[in-house]
Each structure stands twice: as structure tokens, then as C-alpha cells.
């Protein structure tokens, strides 16, 4: 738990830090040492967005690499996530912090294939709706080489998180996730 305030720290979010160690220090939960952060404005109320996200089973509708999330109980869920080479990685996650309409934080439990933690915040943006800020920290599978492989497969978490949030925005604002496929067969292929 660290809100490290070095004298030189500016107002930019931790995920924009040039030096990753500084960024991880500012994270609520220090599980995982690579940080991915994204802010997106969604033209819906905090409560609506929170409610949709809080039901983890919904996440599969916009998180492309998530195969499924099984809700175990009010605090715990089991994640099955696509990995390079047609494999999957799994973990149990537990909610570490929750504030209705404002914040959900979670962390993987011991034994996870990828040690990770995340935090999603919903902030009022007046007439613009809600600013959603996601921060995800993770240990890349297999260290640097794993990350390199992941990059080749476009499942690199920074890219993935960015794209997931865009899909979340689309789903919440328009009721659907954009696709440029022409036929159902193409759409299936795209999702595979």
C-alpha cells in the first residue's frame, strides 16, 4: 500500500510514469510489477457502469482474451484467459476493495498462473458521463521472453487492456461491440 509522494511527483497518473518502479510504488496492491493504466470517458452513469462490471461474468462480453469468468462467491471468481499458442492460463481472483459506484479492486490468489492485480475506478465526469480508470499490474508469464511472445500474439496486456476498455465503452454507450465483419462466419473467425 503506497502513496509515495516523492518531492518531484507530478499530477499525472502512475500508469503514465516513465519509470516503472515509481509507478508500481503508487499502486494500491503491489502484486505484479508491470503496470497498465487507461482512462476512458463513457457517457453513462457511475452506477450503471459499476453494476455491469461488478458482475464479473459480464466481462467476457468485451474482454477479448477472457474465455470465461466463473463467479465463485461474492468475493471470489475463477478466470480462464487465452494465452499464446492456443493455451489458457487460469487463476482465482478475490476482491480486495469495493466501494459501490466508485471502485472495484481485485488480486489473484496464491497459485495463479499469472500473478496479477487490478483496480477499476469510476469518477463522475458531469455531462460527459463517467471517467473509468483501469490499472492492472501483472507479472508477465515467463518473464521478459514471455512478454515478447505475448507481444507477437497481440495479447500483450497493455494492448489488451486498451482494447478491452474501448469495447466496454462501445457496449455501454451503444449496446453493441463494433465489428466490421460482413458475415457471421467472418465474425466467428475474428473472435477465434
Amino acid at each position, binding site marked *: 500500500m503506497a502513496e509515495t509522494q516523492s518531492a518531484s511527483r507530478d499530477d499525472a497518473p502512475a500508469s503514465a510514469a516513465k519509470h516503472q518502479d515509481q509507478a508500481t510504488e503508487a499502486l494500491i496492491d503491489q502484486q505484479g510489477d508491470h503496470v497498465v493504466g487507461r482512462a476512458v470517458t463513457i457517457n453513462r452513469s457511475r452506477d450503471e457502469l459499476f453494476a455491469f462490471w461488478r458482475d464479473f461474468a459480464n466481462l467476457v462480453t468485451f474482454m477479448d482474451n477472457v474465455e470465461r469468468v466463473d463467479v465463485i462467491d461474492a468475493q471470489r471468481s475463477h478466470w480462464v484467459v487465452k494465452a499464446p499458442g492456443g493455451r489458457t492460463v487460469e487463476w482465482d481472483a478475490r476482491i480486495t476493495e469495493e466501494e459501490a459506484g466508485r471502485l472495484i479492486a481485485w488480486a489473484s490468489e496464491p497459485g495463479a498462473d499469472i500473478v496479477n492485480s487490478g483496480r477499476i475506478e469510476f469518477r463522475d465526469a458531469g455531462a*460527459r458521463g463517467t471517467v473509468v480508470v483501469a490499472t492492472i499490474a501483472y507479472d508477465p508469464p515467463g518473464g521478459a521472453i514471455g512478454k515478447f511472445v505475448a507481444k507477437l500474439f497481440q495479447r500483450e496486456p497493455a494492448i489488451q487492456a*486498451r482494447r478491452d476498455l474501448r469495447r466496454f465503452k462501445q457496449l455501454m454507450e451503444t449496446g453493441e461491440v463494433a465489428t466490421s465483419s460482413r458475415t457471421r462466419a467472418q465474425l466467428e473467425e475474428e473472435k477465434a
Partner: protein
Amino acid sequence: MRALTWHGKHDVRMETVDDPEILNPRDAIIKITSTAICGSDLHLYDAYIPTLQAGDILGHEFMGEVVEVGPKSTLKKGQRVVVPFTIACGSCYHCNKHQYSACPNGLPADNQDIAMPLYGHEMSGLFGYSHMTGGYAGGQAEYVRVPFSDVGPIVIPDGVDDDKVLFLSDILPTGWMAAENAEIEAGDTVAVWGCGPVGLFCVQSAFLMGAERVIAIDHFPSRLELAKKFGAETINFEESKTYEALMEMTGGIGPDTVIDAVGLEAHGFFVDNVIDQIKASTFLGTDRPHSIRQAIIACRKGGRVSMPAVYGGFVDKFPLGAFMEKGLTLKTGQTHVQHYMPGLLNAIMEDKIDTTFLISHRLPLEQAPEGYKMFHDQQNEVTKIVLKPGMQLAA
């Protein structure tokens, strides 16, 4: 169905492909009755626009009949609609401000990354215009899938000819928005570079907005002739010096407002090249910015610059000094088509705007490849080609 597909430079073909299907709740399937070839399509034909893939279906100016609707579409089977070339959701921050061409919700999340390094933001989805704008199949086909069909397409009253309303899809709103961006005041002289479809609609729109004089610039005599028909004075830049002519014609003041309706045209840009160059932080001049340079130099002090013309990358020798010292204002952008469609449909119905004058050729869709070649090779004679699926092949 039959569709016009892109395969490379100057290689477009009619092919048989699978029919489109409803994939999202707000989709509709339109059976195309008329579709035009645009000046912007020539950039694709000349292979200047990157991120096109072999087999992509082109076409962003089209209209037709609703034949299938998703559960959340508000259209009804049998209705005739014109479809805007920009794909916008109607409910995001940008759409609420009527900045439809800035809507990110029609662009698939993965495609949004393509423009980021170049522009800092994602663009909106467009029909038939490369994968940077979504990779959507276009309307030079028998059928097309239209997303957000509850907010995009405009329903056309029965008995109104396709030819009269087809250009609501792009070039008419584009010419109109360009004139609006020129912030024309009564008594103004407006100079328009380029007498293609966009420039010609700028001419008409400028007069409707109260311009006293419009001066149109091009080098194709027949295009200049069309501008003249709408009351413009003309400058043929192959016969006269544009700057000198403009200064003389405006008593040394210069045009109050200038419109660039030419664009990058002959010189393209290459995204991979551009991205590499950004990374290397080196200087790059890719687009051909001749007309916008000229427009800025000719514009009167304190005047306005409107730029409907498309630019994609970086330009060399942009006259930033002249722009600053003369205190000019610049407005530009992909057209917010949805915003202008209803008003312009009324203007057409009330015969305030002439649209059909532009069409020089009508061809069956099957002859689309010939159409591209004609439009590319004979710009003087060919001002606009409209393709019609099912039209009988000329003997």
C-alpha cells in the same frame, strides 16, 4: 452477391462474394440501388491509401432499399434510405456535440490502434475506406451491412429520384460544411480551389450562405464551366497566375475566405513510413499541399481558411508565418454527415440545391472497373459516375 473489390494499384474487379448478414442489433441490410465513385476512391485506386487489403469492397457513397433489419433498428423493410459515409453511434460525447466523424464507437477496438501513432486519436469508422477506418465493406455492391441504422441513414420520401438525393451520403454535406466553416459574411468574396464535386457544391453553398462573389479555380475547362453555371467567376491555373488574378479581382484585398477542395490527390502517404518517421522524429513531407499553401498566401488579412480537402500525413513548407502574421482562422475535418442530412434533404426537395447536374455518367454496377478507369483517366469529361446494380449493360 456481386461487389467491386480492390486488389492493388489500378486493379479493381467485380467478384461474387458472400451476402452480408445482420451481426449487431442495430444493423440493417440495404439493397443498393445507386452508388457513386468518389474522388476519394481514386486515392484507393492509385494505391495511395495504406491499410487496404486485397478483396476489400469499396464504395462510401450509396443508397438503397432496406431489406433486413436487426431488432434495434428503427428502419422498416421497403424504406428507401441514403447512408452517410461516416459510421457514428449517435450517443457518445462526440455524437452529442454532432461531431459525428469523431465518433469512436463504430471503429472496432483493434483498428483504433492504427491511427493512434499518426494522429494521437482514433478516427471514426468509414465505409469502404481501408482498415484504418475500420475495414468496413463498402456500397459498390448489391448489398451492404449498415451498423447504427437507427441513427445514420435518412429515409427518402417516395417518388424522389435516386440521382437527386444520392449525394447526401458525402459530397453535398462536405461542400456545405466547407462553406459553413468558411463563416461567410454578406458581401464576402469566397475563393474555391478545385472544381470537383466537393468544390462545385462549395460554390452553390457559398452563394446560398450570402457570398457576393465566388471565384473558382481549376484547370479542367468543363469543370470550370460547371462552376460558372452556378454564378462563379473562374481562374484556370494553367492560363493565369492564381495569386495575381485573385489580388486583382479583389482590389488588392484578397478573398475574405478561401476553401481548399483539392487535397493530397496525386501524392499519397504511407502509414508505415510515416510511423517510422515519427519514431525517428525526423522531418517528413508526404502530402502535396500546394493548394492549401496558395490559399493561405492569397487569403486576406484576418480572413478564414476552410479545408474540406483530405490530408493524411505531414506537409512540407506549411506557411505558418503567413498564417500567424495575417491572423487567419482554419477549420477542417471529415464531414459530420448526419448533422447536415435532414436540412440538405429539405433544400433538395425545395429545389434550392441542384445535385443532378454533376452526374456525367450512369453505368451498371458490373461496369464499375471501367468506371474507375474512366474517372481516373478523363477528369475533364467525367465529373461523377453513378453505378446502378441491375441496370442493363450498354450494348
